[in-house]
């Protein structure tokens, strides 16, 4: 397998109250294309920070973040954004759907930010919504959906531009156990074709157990956590 994600000597620091805090320190990491990786760690350990670096939301303070060979650290804000909307899909714990857009409009939004959606895009959006079990809710507004449904819309939205990397930040954190299982099933199913790489941050070991590889973040460093166990 080839590497999709390569992190080299990555440090990410924040200034808090005049003092600098290193959240991630000299991080080296390689993630193969098509793999599913779970990130474990305590709250505040840096899981979300690492996902932000992978998604190009934040640049590293020092070091290189390469996605499919492109070093995000050398790109400016706009270039990182354009790269993200072409190659990376994101799923959040709090869903972050746009409340004034319908389900279908939310799913098509990343495409619309790039260009005018074609009929093929619409077809694909409907197909994704069918696969996520929301074919009959395309015209509903997010406030009318349950938490599980909202996350499934977010999932469809993250995949509409067929990204190579899917980054999910505690995607089941706001869901009950049963709904969380359904969402994880769907996530696995949508990423099972071997073309897409999934990196998800979670507190749940059962969620981590569904991945090929589990990493743990401790004191700003990444450790292999051994084979996943349920």
């Amino acid at each position: 397998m080839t590497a999709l994600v390569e992190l080299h000597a990555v440090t990410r620091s924040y200034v808090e109250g005049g003092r600098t805090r290193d959240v991630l320190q000299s991080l080296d990491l390689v993630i193969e294309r098509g793999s599913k990786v779970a990130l474990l760690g305590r709250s505040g350990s840096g899981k979300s920070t690492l996902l932000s670096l992978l998604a190009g939301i934040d640049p590293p303070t020092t070091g290189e973040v390469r996605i499919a060979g492109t070093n995000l650290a050398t790109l400016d804000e706009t270039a990182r954004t354009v790269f993200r909307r072409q190659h990376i899909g994101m799923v959040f714990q709090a869903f972050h759907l746009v409340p004034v857009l319908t389900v279908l409009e939310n799913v098509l939004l990343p495409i619309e930010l790039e260009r005018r959606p074609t009929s093929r895009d619409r077809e694909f959006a409907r197909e994704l919504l069918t696969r996520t079990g929301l074919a009959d809710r395309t015209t509903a507004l997010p406030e009318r959906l349950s938490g599980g449904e909202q996350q499934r819309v977010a999932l469809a939205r993250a995949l509409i531009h067929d990204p190579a990397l899917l980054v999910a930040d505690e995607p089941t954190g706001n869901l009950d156990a049963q709904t969380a299982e359904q969402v994880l099933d769907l996530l696995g199913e949508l990423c099972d074709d071997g073309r897409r790489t999934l990196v998800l941050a979670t507190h749940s070991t059962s969620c981590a157990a569904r991945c090929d590889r589990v990493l743990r973040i401790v004191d700003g460093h990444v450790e292999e956590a051994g084979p996943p166990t349920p």
Partner: protein
Amino acid sequence: MNPLVRIGGRHFLRHRAQLALAVFGVGIGVAAVVAIGLANESASRAFDLSVDSLSGRATHRVVGGPGGLEDDLHRRIRTEFGVPTAAPVLEGTCRALLPDDARRPTLRILGIDPLAEAPLRPHLGAFGGRQTQLDVGRLMAEPGTVVVTGETARALGVDAGGSLALEVAGFEARVRVISVLEPTDELAARGLDHVLVTDMSTAQDLLRRPGRLDRIDILVSDSAAESLAASLPEGTRLEPAERQRGVLRDLTRAFRINLEAMGMLALLVGAFLIHNTMRFAVVQRRPLFGIARALGATPRQVFTSVLGEALVLGCLATLLGIGLGIGLAHLLLGLVARTIEDFYFSMSVRELVLDPAVLATGAGLGLTACIAAALLPAREAVRVPAREAIHRAGLETRATQGSRRAAGIGLLLLLAGVVVLQADDRSIALAYTGILLVLLATTSLAPWCTGLLLRASSRPLGRLLGGPGRYAAQSAVGSLSRTGLAVTALMLAVAAAIGLGAMIQTFRGTVSTWLGTALAADVYVTVPAAMSERTSVQMAPDSVRALEALPEVGELSTYRRVEVLEATGLRLELAAVRASSRTVEGLSMLDGTEEAARAALQNGEALLISEPLAWRLRLGVGDELVIRTDTRGNVSLPIAAVFRDYAAERGWAMLARARYDALFDDDAVTSVALWAREGTTVAELLEATQDAADRAEQRLAVQASEGLRVASLEIFDRTFAITAVLRLLCLAVAGLGIFSALSALQLERRREVGALRAIGATPRQVAVMLTGQNLLLGLCAGLLAIPTGMALAWLLAAVVNRRSFGWTLLEFGFPPGVAVDAVLTAVAAAGLAGIWPSLRLARAPLSAALRDE
């Protein structure tokens, strides 16, 4: 500390800019009311002080007709009628000709009999053995001597012993200051500010009124007054001294009411701003209130804390507003005093009076506006179920439903406004109540209309700009609870600004067209003086004769403008006209025929009256007006015609000169109108007239009709300078309001924008989207401001003007440029106001925005 108070306090501390904008916006509204109130009150107070100071202890005054009184009457009152405490007065105005100062300040000449002053005006007399700063002997014995107060002397740069060059009724004169008074009491100091106190004979010389008096102030009991009134000769009358006090208030009533109403309009816009701010502040913390209520806060606690915040905010804004208002009042006082001097009478207003009643009114209005504005959001904060309050779901649905309900209420308010406006066609108070109801109606309808416009724009914007365009429109509809308010506040302010603008433009157009007709003669000649002095200035007989003798003159009319009394004691302005065959050409008849007017000006059997006078006294053709005359007592004159006039807001009447001469003991002329002889051009006539004026001893103002038209329009513009200041205030409040609203709106959309950025929107796309949305909101406000502004302009021009002054405008037009102005102003205000918050939001750290809950 109460946790809800702490939450509120910290909310505003975290959003200091929002707090500052709200406080400043409301402060400006309060400032407008305070400034106008203080300027009005200071002008009134200056006049009252001047009257009180000059009336002194007098209980009554004897006055005559336009020509005044014979000075022998003073002696007769003291000796024949047995009233020992009587003091004669002759007053007039003049300009000081100061070296190195082109301002030519206006001074009042006060001619007195120093020996008669002590019992009535101790500060002027203090004779009879008491110590005085006045050198009475020199004042009486030396002609051309005056006394001034120290403050006046300093303002004019003259000391005791120095001399002053004056221009009195077009003649140059020189007086010597023999004494400088330093009055110890406030009344005397204020009353004598910019007054030249002189002996009666000097005053008569200066004012060229030999042997004449304006009035005789007397101190008598009521019973003695009755017998004196019965003994006075024909053409003179006795009136209570306090009647003069009400003159200013009466003369300037409409002017003051209109100014106050403009201030209220600014406050209304300001009140809407604070309503906006309070709504935002509450809506933003809706989840917090929900949590607090879920944790046990009672609805009453939440309600009280929201109102408490409004009170604190109101106090801060009111304090700031009063401070700003006092500053602004200094500026407005100059404009108000100038308008009063231009149109009503000459007075010296230099000091701003900090009237506690005005300050209390400003404070009361500011606080009331804040509390009233907070009531609705406070009610909303406690009525929403806690569970619903925590989540935003349902809020916008409620806002949409609420906008429909508000629109219904708006229609009812509109209906109520129309009913109120039609209830009484003369009440100014009801006119303003109607306007207020109409404005409230439009603000109630605006959110619903905004929703309609935004929904309608979604599809075309989507086609034009793709997803971001549609998103801009849909997002604005989706936040109707906030965007509706922002659009309404901007709409109201822009409507107020364009409404005032259109009213002024329409009025100016009417006056300009009317001047084209009214100034029918080729050249006009008069003594240079302010309009307020038009009933007191006189052209010298030699000057009139010189003009009559000019070979270039084909026809000539003379005018004598005087103040006379109607039978009930009402003051009327009367023009005695020696008409030419062309005088009537300058009159636009509203009632009656040109032939009837021509006949009245020839035979003097009837009066012509202007539209404002007809309105004020409810008179029309065929009615009669009874006036008090010098020689025939009360004379009843029928009205032959009513003509259009915008020069004198209280109206005036025209009477043939021959009839006037028979009724009044006065042969003076105020102005002359000249028509060029056939074969002579206007330029030749103007040149010949100017040459004659240059040769005359009296300085005369010679103007061609076009020059006079331009000069009249300049005075018009000066009068409306105050309105222009208020218009700017409205726009300033609007600017602050929309900036505050857009900042708050975008602040709370941080997460939403964060999500957009996370799924691929570039900072530029976000900035363009948000700016586009701001422009769209501005466009909505501009479009809604057009009908509101039109309604306001029409109400001000056709209803308020009519009820205040009796004027009907030639035509009411809403120039297309004003509609374009409305849209451009609103779009520009929203666009400019939104730039900073949009950029700030677009550039906000993405990870922080996504974490922000």
